[in-house]
């Protein structure tokens, strides 16, 4: 899970390390925009802008939706706190924790059996 968060953090920082992408975020903070709009505004090719948007999307900073032939970009829900992600985060932690507890428990069981051979089941 930490790995997940670390890679996400890395992706976010990497996404923000580029001036154009920071500009795109500013722009989307003012209003949603299509990739074509953004390409025009930043004097870029459509392909170049698609790449930048893909990086921002990967980092969860932007989300896109294609309607007809137009892909609209808006600021993403970066905090990932929809219900499913929230539950998953908690389950991942407890699951990892209890799987390690299993190992301690198995060891204690073995020790107990070794100490009390007569009570072996």
């Amino acid at each position, binding site marked *: 899970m930490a790995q997940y968060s670390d890679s996400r953090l890395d992706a976010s920082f990497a996404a*923000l390390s580029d001036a154009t992408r920071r500009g795109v975020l500013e722009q989307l903070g003012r209003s949603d925009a299509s990739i074509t709009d953004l390409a025009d505004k930043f004097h870029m090719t459509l392909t170049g802008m698609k790449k930048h948007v893909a990086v921002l999307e990967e980092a969860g900073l932007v989300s896109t939706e294609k309607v007809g032939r137009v892909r609209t970009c808006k600021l993403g829900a970066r905090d990932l706190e929809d219900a499913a992600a929230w539950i998953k985060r908690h389950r991942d932690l407890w699951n990892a924790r209890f799987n390690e507890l299993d190992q301690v428990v198995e060891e204690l069981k073995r020790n107990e059996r070794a100490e009390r051979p007569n009570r072996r089941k």
Partner: protein
Amino acid sequence: MKNPTTVERKSDRELVVTRTFDAPARIIFQAWSKPELFRRWWIPKSMGMTLVSYEADIRTGGSYRLEISHQGSKPMAFFGKYLEVTPHSRMVWTNEESTDSPVTTVTLEEKGGKTLLVLSELHPSKAALDAAGTGALDAMPETFGQLDELVAELLAGAARSTMRAPAMRP
């Protein structure tokens, strides 16, 4: 085959975790209440965190304190008191590292040599549960906080003048 862990929001304020262990309750309680054993599982290795210190006086009225560090960062402390400890069956403790932290209750129910563990976190409000982190994982809000600030600056359109390049390269 590992037993599954289930997590659900039982109400606006309550998170419930359940897990079955293939062992009697006394064994689970032992693994939980002996600090040298507890240290071995509370911080899963997969989280990339270290339990720097752990002290606990596991009895009703006793207290505990643990310090967790993430990749050499300054340790974060988690602490509180045991409101109730009934060996082999029930532990209730407070989490006092912040004012809106939950009360945690763990019950152990043994049946046919297996034990059903139910852990419940009762938060003071819905907002507190919504915001609840996963304990040690919160060792990272500092970093996320920095990023949030950065994003907020960007969105305010004030970014270019105040952007600090080094912040981009953690």
